[in-house]
């Protein structure tokens, strides 16, 4: 299957996205922010369809919207806690706008499916270049903030006393999440970002109790699920996103049974 250009591009794009999704996902799960990842991807839908309407690349529209939403969420911070209804209504408005933009753009069916459920086999070289740059920048940013981020996540009160700006760390992390969400949506679509960002990280956190190993395992799992998903899609002709979601879900529930066995053994 590697003799085709589009397959090679898909494997490289999937790999780039898996690396950032797995590592960002680890902190997302650790900080109990998985819902934020989900929310950002929904907001991104409006951005993606909006830029299709304007004739620009959906990736950049998605990114603009997820970044704006991430900064807003970071600035509101704790005030968002317990505002599930307000957040949910804003999210449905974002999806509503997405639908409107699709309606205004005449040939909407294929574009909508690609944005909602991803189309990694359709990634062009220009998008690949953008993904490469975004992964590089966001990985660098994540590495830069990872130390205070870990401290602020595990011991926020102590971190604040030791001079960590909880607010700054939180906003910077959400910005990195926004980039990761926009990238992940290119592979699995805005509706299945959870499968690639949360699934591998949640699984790895059940497999090891060591932070370094857990991040490494999350990245490897995300890579394996993405590449295997693309390969299975090539063989079966079923959608890549279906296979990735299935693999992500299977890995997570297998890790749950392992845990159950450990408990049973005492």
């Amino acid at each position, binding site marked *: 299957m590697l003799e085709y250009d589009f397959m090679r591009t898909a494997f490289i794009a999937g790999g780039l996205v898996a690396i950032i999704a797995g590592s960002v996902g680890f902190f997302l799960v650790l900080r109990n922010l998985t819902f934020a990842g989900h929310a950002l991807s929904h907001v991104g839908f409006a951005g993606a369809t909006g830029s299709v309407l304007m004739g620009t690349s959906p990736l950049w529209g998605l990114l603009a919207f997820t970044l704006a939403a991430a900064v807003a969420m970071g600035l509101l911070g704790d005030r968002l806690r317990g505002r599930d209804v307000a957040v949910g209504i804003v999210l449905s408005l974002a999806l509503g706008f997405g639908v409107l933009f699709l309606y205004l753009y005449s040939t909407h069916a294929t574009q909508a499916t690609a944005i909602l459920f991803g189309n990694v086999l359709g990634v062009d070289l220009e998008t690949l270049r953008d993904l490469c740059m975004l992964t590089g920048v966001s990985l660098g940013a994540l590495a830069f903030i990872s130390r205070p981020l870990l401290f602020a996540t595990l011991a926020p009160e102590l971190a604040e006393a030791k001079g960590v700006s909880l607010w700054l760390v939180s906003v910077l992390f959400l910005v990195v999440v926004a980039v990761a969400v926009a990238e992940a949506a290119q592979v699995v679509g805005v509706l299945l970002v959870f499968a690639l960002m949360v699934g591998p990280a949640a699984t790895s956190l059940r497999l090891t*109790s060591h932070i370094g190993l857990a991040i490494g395992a999350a990245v490897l799992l995300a890579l394996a699920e993405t590449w295997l998903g693309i390969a299975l899609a090539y063989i079966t002709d079923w959608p890549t996103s279906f296979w990735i979601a299935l693999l992500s879900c299977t890995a997570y529930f297998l890790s749950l049974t392992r845990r159950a066995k450990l408990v049973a053994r005492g």
Partner: protein
Amino acid sequence: MFAIELDRVTIARAGHTVLAHVNVAIHAGEFIGVFGSNGAGKTTLLQAILGLLRPSTGTIKVLGVAPARGNPAAGYLPQQRVSVSDLRLSGWDFVASALHGERWGLPLTGRAGRLDVNRAIATVDAETLASRPLCELSGGELQRLLLAQALIGKPTLLLLDEPLLSLDPRFQQATVALVKRIQQAERITVLFTAHELNPLLDAMDRVLYLGQGRAALGTVDEVMRSDVLSRLYGSTIDVLRVDGRLLVVSAQGLAETDAHRHHA
């Protein structure tokens, strides 16, 4: 030079005066038990010493200088703790997250850092907890790891906010004994807030009692007296000695020193 010095300090929180013109001087190496009812200003006092809150009037000096966030000399065990009890992370990694966690970059420990983390863990006798996941630890075991976290960086001042809360009496005594041992071995100053006085009776050098915005500092015999506490509360308070323990009784019944016994 005092380890901690408050000179006519007034601190307000959300428009409400918590401490008013408080004077306190604590010597280096002292073990101070800090008491008072809910809202009396125990946490406020610790946060002001850490530089998280600024007094509206008066001056605070910590080891001779104005308090500032990020003071490496101050170790802190906060009262509000993030729920880590469902995480599978190891105790070692949890403690190590506090190692220069204020610096940007990757959370690499390095050789010196690993030794510092190991030393802090050994100080609280938590070697066996280090390799276990947090979700399998009891409240008392997690408490020891939090204490280890506070000891990262070899602080000379240890601020412990309600470390006995939600611990059963056996673990309360063990925690007090552990802190006392650390205070003596490392010659550090300890401020230990608690609801109940009795578990700390043998460990404390002096008592700091807060009430109605005021503070009374002195030995147990100097502070735990009917006239001193009555003046502090502005109402009649009796202090009873029963079987080597102190019971604080107000006109309305048993005051906070004993109120928590029912929950213990």
